[in-house]
């Protein structure tokens, strides 16, 4: 071979190996570049709009109702003593006082001591609305032009993981407390390069498994795999081939037929567990958040997902009931403690190999509104004031330093958009996510802020 020809061919080979992506057996493009520090991540959206005053600062009634009573009502997550007076946040006490009996702690060691706490994080951009906050949490981007009934415009962490880490559809799950507030739209974006084909599976379990699902799903017919499902599938393939040859086809999550059947089996399993009273609900389950966490434990046990995002929202009752807000906050902490304990004690495949991150989607106003509740306490909205931009982030698990606090009230560290690169780092695809260039400018892994 002549020298010129050799150089030309060698150059073309090198260029094509750089320019042309190749498919790995998992179906993804290129090799994952980072090392995962945990096999699983659970992100709890401690959502509904939480004030720093009643959470991180443990001020109870002192900075809201003008009463000099402080204390920690989130003792599964935070260190500090509970309030001693005007207890309204628990369950009904023996003497009939509503909320008068605090719920027992589940964790012997609060999560704060088991992991790293960023007590002052900022929701830095845009309005502090629920959907905007949730969308930012899962996409790492403040969707300032985001429509309320549209999917996120930038890819979600689910899509990054499926595309760049090669996860299958049932490896990533989003559990919502309901179907309102566009929550069902958060399992994937409308981004042309990602989208439904890389999306997460989703349940709003209090709908799927309770009244509506009980009537229209429970006891659905299970077809025999060989004698019934196989011919059904053959006929459907024929019908679809004819139709799709002419351009028809619906967007889907790319669950394989096997995964779909597994999801169906899980649905019936949950109904069976419910009938036998065997769902691992938190000890106190009296609102949608605690119920959602109970169903999430079943999901984790069944699928052992790589990433699970679970949303809570009952705290938002604070718009018209401060007492209800305290009760919901106390239960959200109870639910987080239960979830962490369940993972460590009931799911051997995930115990010791799961990182959990907890973050509210946004904060709440400093000044109250005019609504009084049954205790004559004022309620609070979230109108994008400085206080409603104050949130916290807590994380625990392998590779996460224990008993570490990063930042303070005078030195805020971290941003709501940091969660996506943080999860990406834990699961080993940080460089792919960062180089996609679709995150909020300045968003970075919380590990890089320590």
């Amino acid at each position, binding site marked *: 071979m002549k020298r010129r020809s050799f150089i030309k061919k060698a150059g073309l080979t090198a260029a094509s190996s750089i320019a042309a992506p190749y498919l790995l057996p998992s179906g993804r493009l290129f090799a994952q570049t980072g090392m995962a520090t945990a096999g699983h991540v659970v992100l709890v959206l401690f959502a509904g709009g939480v004030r720093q005053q009643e959470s991180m600062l443990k001020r109870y009634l002192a900075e809201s109702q003008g009463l000099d009573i402080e204390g920690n009502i989130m003792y599964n997550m935070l260190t500090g003593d509970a309030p001693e007076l005007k207890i309204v946040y628990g369950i009904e006490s023996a003497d009939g006082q509503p909320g008068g009996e605090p719920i027992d702690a589940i964790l012997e060691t609060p999560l704060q001591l088991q992991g790293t706490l960023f007590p002052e994080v900022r929701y830095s951009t845009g309005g502090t609305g629920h959907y905007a906050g949730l969308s930012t949490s899962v996409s790492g981007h403040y969707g300032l032009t985001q429509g309320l009934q549209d999917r996120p415009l930038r890819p979600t962490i689910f899509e990054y993981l499926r595309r760049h880490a090669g996860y299958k559809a049932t490896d990533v799950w989003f559990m919502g407390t309901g179907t309102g507030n566009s929550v069902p739209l958060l399992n994937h974006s409308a981004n042309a390069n990602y989208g439904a084909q890389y999306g997460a599976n989703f349940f709003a379990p209090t709908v*799927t498994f309770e009244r509506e699902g009980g009537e229209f799903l429970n006891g659905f017919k299970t077809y025999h795999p060989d004698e019934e499902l196989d011919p059904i599938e053959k*006929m459907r393939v024929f019908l*679809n081939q*004819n139709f799709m040859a002419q351009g028809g086809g619906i967007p889907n*999550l790319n669950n394989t037929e096997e995964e*779909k059947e597994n999801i169906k089996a899980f649905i019936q399993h949950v109904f069976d567990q419910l009938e036998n009273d065997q769902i691992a609900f938190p000890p106190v389950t009296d609102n949608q958040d605690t119920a959602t966490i109970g169903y999430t434990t079943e999901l984790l046990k069944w699928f052992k997902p790589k990433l699970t995002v679970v949303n809570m929202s009952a705290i938002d009752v604070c718009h018209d009931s401060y007492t209800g807000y305290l009760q919901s906050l106390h239960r959200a902490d109870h639910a987080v403690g239960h979830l962490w304990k369940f993972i460590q004690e009931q799911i051997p495949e995930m115990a010791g190999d799961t990182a959990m991150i907890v973050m509210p989607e946004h904060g709440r106003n400093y000044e109250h509104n005019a609504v009084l509740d049954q205790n004559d306490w004022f309620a609070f909205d979230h109108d994008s004031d400085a206080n409603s931009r104050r949130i916290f982030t807590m994380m625990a698990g392998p590779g996460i330093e224990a008993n570490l606090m990063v930042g303070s009230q005078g030195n805020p560290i971290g941003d709501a958009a940091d969660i996506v690169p943080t999860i990406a780092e834990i699961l080993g695809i940080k460089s792919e996510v960062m180089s996609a260039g679709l995150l909020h400018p300045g968003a970075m892994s919380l590990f890089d802020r320590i």
Partner: protein
Amino acid sequence: MRFTQKYFILFFSLLCLFSCKEESYIYEVNDLTIESNNSNKGKEKTPSQYLNILYANLYQKPLSPNKLVDLINLVNSIGDKQVAYETIIAKMMTDPDIQIPSKSSMNADIDAFVTETYKRFYVRIPTEAEKTYFVNFIQSHPNIGPEHIYFSFATSNEYYFY
């Protein structure tokens, strides 16, 4: 001469009258309306449309507004819509009120059953290739019945479009 001329004019007139009449040939083939085999369905049904039509197709009666609201909420609570619809249909298949032909009536006239199924679910008649496929499939799979065929149609891509 005038007599000959008259006859010539009469002959020419008759020739003009009948010479343009079109001949009609019958080749023993029935008339057929030609349509594309997806009937130009290009719009995806909303969950509300899908559920209303599904219920009407399976129960032969309309869905009540309250049930529709609950079913839409249920579909929205499950991320994979195909899983959602398939489980809802599988539940409907356990309902004694569902209107499905018996297996014996299907086997009595498979041709008619296939045509009726296409009309019921796809609002069109099957192509000859489609009809042949299903007739052969039903004859070679004695274990399957109308329920399985309805399930396939109701969960196929064409049924999600209108």
